[in-house]
């Protein structure tokens, strides 16, 4: 008898809670029907954070759904595992645009939509791989330099003028790697004196492997963005290969004793470009967003991004940055005529674009990187 009375209210409870939970879920269901456009973004960490996109979201009634990756290989993997049309806007490392295009992941863009006339540097308008057969597939939005990143209490500014400082005995177990083969091996290639660090023949590649392997005893760990960040900040790592101001800049703003320089062997430029994903249902809004990111306001947001700073690529963007945050502009050399003006550095030949290995294939470099990590 008591069992039955126990049971019956139960069933009613279930109904009650069922109704209640349906009611609760209503606002969420109805929200999906509201006019807000959802833009799916695939990007490096930080590009979809409020400090960059909040204004655009508010002005256009858009909501970004970001998915973050680390490294171009990772980006390609993520796209290929998702149904076509999943991502509306794709931020790609410039050297991977070609492969995005070859795989048919991105749509053609109309060059007239973007302020190419206002670019700081002519080469950036025609960035390798962004155009194919006269068609535009991606627009460069920002860039930055990779060099020697170090803890200023452990490495002097003078020592940091060469990648050789990574081999300093005092740094044993305190040199970290950003866990991606391209920037690290590129730096080793520069140290070996290769003028085009990513276009090297077998002999030079063998030397690069040798140089890299000799660094292994110094290495304290392999890190993703978060780990790199943490490792430098808490002093676990005193020098970092494969990164640059994009990470130390954030820590500097926070008062940490770290810095990045382009050493005498030269530095590497990372380049980031926006594309529109093929099959996007919001291509118009995606275009509008890319236009926004290339507008002076967008360029300022991009240059001052909380996750990691970058250089403005348009003249108007640089001007706006100098007005809005002259300190940051000066810190990063984004002042016309400055000695460390990124454009000047390229013209002087001290900066090479990060590229994909021209003579070996990505897989070969990647496999070596795995071997290096595991050794």
């Amino acid at each position, binding site marked *: 008898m008591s069992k039955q009375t126990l049971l019956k209210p139960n069933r009613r409870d279930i109904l009650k809670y069922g109704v209640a939970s349906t009611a609760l879920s209503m606002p969420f269901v109805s929200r999906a029907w509201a006019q807000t456009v959802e833009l799916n973004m695939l990007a490096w960490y930080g590009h979809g954070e409020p400090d960059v996109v909040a204004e655009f979201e508010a002005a256009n009634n858009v909501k970004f759904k970001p998915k973050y990756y680390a490294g171009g290989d990772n980006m390609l*993997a993520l796209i290929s595992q998702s149904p076509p049309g999943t991502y509306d806007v794709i931020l790609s490392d410039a050297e991977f645009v070609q*492969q995005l295009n070859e795989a048919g992941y991105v749509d053609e863009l109309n060059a007239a939509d973007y302020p190419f006339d206002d670019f700081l540097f002519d080469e950036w308008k025609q960035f390798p791989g962004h155009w194919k057969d006269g068609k535009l597939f991606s627009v460069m939005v920002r860039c930055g330099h990779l060099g020697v990143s170090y803890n200023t209490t452990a490495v002097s500014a003078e020592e940091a003028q060469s990648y050789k400082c990574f081999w300093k005995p005092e740094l044993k177990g305190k040199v970290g790697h950003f866990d991606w083969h391209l920037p690290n091996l590129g730096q080793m290639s520069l140290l070996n004196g290769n003028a085009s660090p990513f276009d090297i023949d077998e002999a030079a590649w063998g030397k690069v492997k040798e140089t890299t392997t000799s660094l292994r005893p110094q290495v304290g*760990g392999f890190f993703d963005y978060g780990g790199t960040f943490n490792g430098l900040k808490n002093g676990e790592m005193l020098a970092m290969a494969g990164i640059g101001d994009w990470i130390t800049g954030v820590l500097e703003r926070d008062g940490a004793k770290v810095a990045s320089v382009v050493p005498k062997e030269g530095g590497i430029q990372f380049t980031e470009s926006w594309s529109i994903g093929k099959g996007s249902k919001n291509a118009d809004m995606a275009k509008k967003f890319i236009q926004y990111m290339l507008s002076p306001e967008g360029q300022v947001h991009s240059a001052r991004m909380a996750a990691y700073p970058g250089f403005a690529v348009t003249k108007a963007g640089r001007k706006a940055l100098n007005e809005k945050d002259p300190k940051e502009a000066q810190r990063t050399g984004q002042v016309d005529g400055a000695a460390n003006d990124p454009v000047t550095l390229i013209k002087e030949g001290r900066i090479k674009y990060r590229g994909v290995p021209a003579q070996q294939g990505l897989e070969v470099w990647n496999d070596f990187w*795995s071997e290096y*990590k*595991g050794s």
Partner: protein
Amino acid sequence: MAEGQRRDFYAWFWRAPLLVWQLLFFVVPLAFMFVMSFWLVKNYRMTPAFAFDNWAKMLGWNIFWSSYAYTMALAVAATILASVLAFPAAYGLAFRVTDTTRRWALFFLIIPFFTSYLVRVYAWQVVLAGNGVISAMLGWVGLGPISLLNTPIGTLVGYLTLSFPLVVILQTISLASIDKTLIEAAHNMGCSPLRTVFSVIIPAAKVGLIVAGLFCFILSFGDFVSPYYLGGSKPPTLSIMIVDSTKSGQQWPRAAVIAVVMILSLLAIAFTAVKFAYRRRG
């Protein structure tokens, strides 16, 4: 006949859900992963094939085997550490406290399962770092600084974070369910407490102790968070290799090879352990 059919329907109604669901979403995915290990990757795209390239590449790659050995060694170390370190605690909880205390202790041991493992690992990062909590505490007594982060010890701390509470729980339960008269008999016969532990209690609780260790091994062997965020991925364990392979170069078939080897190893070890657990003494 109709009655029988209704019976059958009733029986199958309860039997079917597991069969359907686990076949469709457990057995088939694993089988598919095995098939995928024979596929090829061209231009970042997987193409169905029946090729032994991935197997040849992975099994012929010394890095794979050194990573295998490293992963195995760490997991075994974690299992031994957890089992040995948990035993006195489990012994105390099983024999030296009241039932109420034991129930509360078990309740507190369950709590870690409801805090995010990732959050706990992040907290360890801060605690273990060179300028972290442990270092600072050592500094008060004039020692240090010492950093356990990005070392195998860091990884082991993570593994234990994951499995230690479970091992204590399982050991406590299996010790508490030993027939108490057995222990009293040993005691009355003049057996020293330590000897009682080794020749009466441990053999009697063998199954539970081994199962506890096995769980610790499984959890540690497959964890990719601790070796990455506490061990600095130096060198990568097999589970990190899986993540790496899926991330870079779209090498899913290779990741599948690693996964299949891991599963086979786990099955072999689990089988041996269970067999050992139920082996008659003699």
